[in-house]
């Protein structure tokens, strides 16, 4: 698994690479377009780099520009194409988006939403989709959700963990659940 950061900034893209120079051979820096850079980071560095809000603020402080940053783990490419991320990142507000934030933005376009939903159903299966929607319907009350799905509470937890592993979205958190439901509903 790897960890991709997409950075959209049209003025100082070349210089931004310097930030990640310290990581040497742990990163692959690609100029996807004139205004877009993709930095691939090995997963064992994820813990250190997870707070991209700090990097975002640092870029603002050092370069005097605001950027749009999207970061995803590579498992999301099973239901979300890289080309879609690249197309979308240019139209987002200047801020940092994780997968939940990105899905929420993508759900605003009906065609995109339908497309992602189709891929997600294929990828995680209808059973997991029903689980996500039931958690939302039951206001994130997992005990009630388990009862409604005729599952033991631990089985539900197992399913939720699987959904998390596959989609990188944690439906136990409101942000994550909101993001998936916005695509699936």
């Amino acid at each position, binding site marked *: 698994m790897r960890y991709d950061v997409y950075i959209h900034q049209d003025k100082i893209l070349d*210089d931004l690479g*310097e*930030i*990640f120079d*310290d*990581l040497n051979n742990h990163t692959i820096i690609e100029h996807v377009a004139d205004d877009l850079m993709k930095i691939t980071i090995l997963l064992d*560095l994820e*813990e*250190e*780099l*997870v*707070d991209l*809000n*700090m*990097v*975002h*603020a*640092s870029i*603002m*402080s*050092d*370069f*005097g*520009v*605001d950027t749009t940053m999207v970061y995803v783990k590579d498992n999301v490419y099973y239901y979300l194409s890289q080309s879609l991320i690249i197309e979308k990142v240019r139209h987002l507000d200047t801020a940092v988006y994780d997968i939940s934030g990105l899905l929420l933005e993508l759900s605003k376009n009906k065609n995109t939403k339908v497309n992602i939903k189709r891929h997600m159903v294929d990828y995680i299966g209808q059973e997991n989709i029903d689980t996500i929607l039931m958690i939302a319907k039951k206001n994130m009350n997992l005990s009630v959700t388990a009862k409604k799905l005729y599952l033991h509470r631990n089985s539900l937890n197992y399913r939720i963990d699987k959904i998390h592993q596959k989609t990188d979205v944690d439906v136990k958190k409101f942000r994550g659940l909101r993001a998936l439901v916005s695509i699936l509903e």
Partner: protein
Amino acid sequence: MATLIFKGIKKVYTPGDRPAVDDFNLQIKDKEFVVFVGPSGCGKSTTLRMVAGLEEITDGELYIDDILVNDMAPKDRNIAMVFQSYALYPHMTVYNNMAFGLKLRKEPKDMIDEKVRNAAQILGLTEYLERKPKALSGGQRQRVALGRAIVRNAKVFLMDEPLSNLDAKLRVQMRGEIIKLHKKIETTTIYVTHDQIEAMTMASRIVVMKDGFIQQVGAPKEIYDNPNNIFVGGFIGTPPMNFIEGKVDKKGIFTGEGISVKISKFHQELLEKKSYIDKPIVLGIRPEDIHDDEKAKEQFKDAIVKIVVDVAELLGSETSIYAKVGDSDVTAMIPARVDIQIGDELHMAFDMEKVHFFDQETTQRIK
């Protein structure tokens, strides 16, 4: 170090929408520590971002050291920013974090080293220079972020809610450190916060904002003692100012729901002069200007008000009383007392010298 002049600054994000900032006029003197304060969405961060060059100015002029900077690139403005999210690169050491901005500017290595070590000393970070941000506490991280601003030798520091990520105790400590730092390096600073305590304790001048407009500019004490309008009176001060609606008659008696008090001669003359007699007005009084001691009751014997206690909180050195006067909620801060119970009826004296009167319609202070 620098002066800043805002002339009729306006920011509109979407044409046709209400401006995020409108008619913003302000002069900031060299070495000043100015705090923009107001509730969420009042335009304070937008104004700061316009100074930084992160947002375009829709209308008006912004001068830094008498140079018009509306169209100047952010990097040429020589401004340093400190944010709520610590501006740090998680994978770099403290030293490299502070040095990075200087390396970008192609400064010589020995110069960078000197500046970084100097800033580290000022901020007490010398022993942490080889650590990475994850091995630092929140307060230390924010100090590194401040260090990154210091090494730049910037003309202006912009701080956008830099203490909001810290816990209450650390926030108080960092507040003191930022004030000390400002005293030491004397860089002109604009500090944005929604926390009026930060504003009161740190600012040499406060700019109170609401709905994109400046409500009042002044020294903390001046704003506290003489709020321009009901919003400022209610926003600055903890607990906030009490407001009671009513009318003043020709004899100088203020009458509202559950209250009838004689106002001071000064206020009577003022209200007469401004034609507010028998017109709906709002009386504003700070919680500490409501007294229960006999001396005050004697002094303000024509301004005794009966209150019914909702809640009495003993805070140690003082007791805060939340009560009702007619339909209005009133808070009083009195010296510590343990004998006050919920539902008690108390007679309190209003210090009529210290009250303010506001126009009920415009909410402006009558002055």
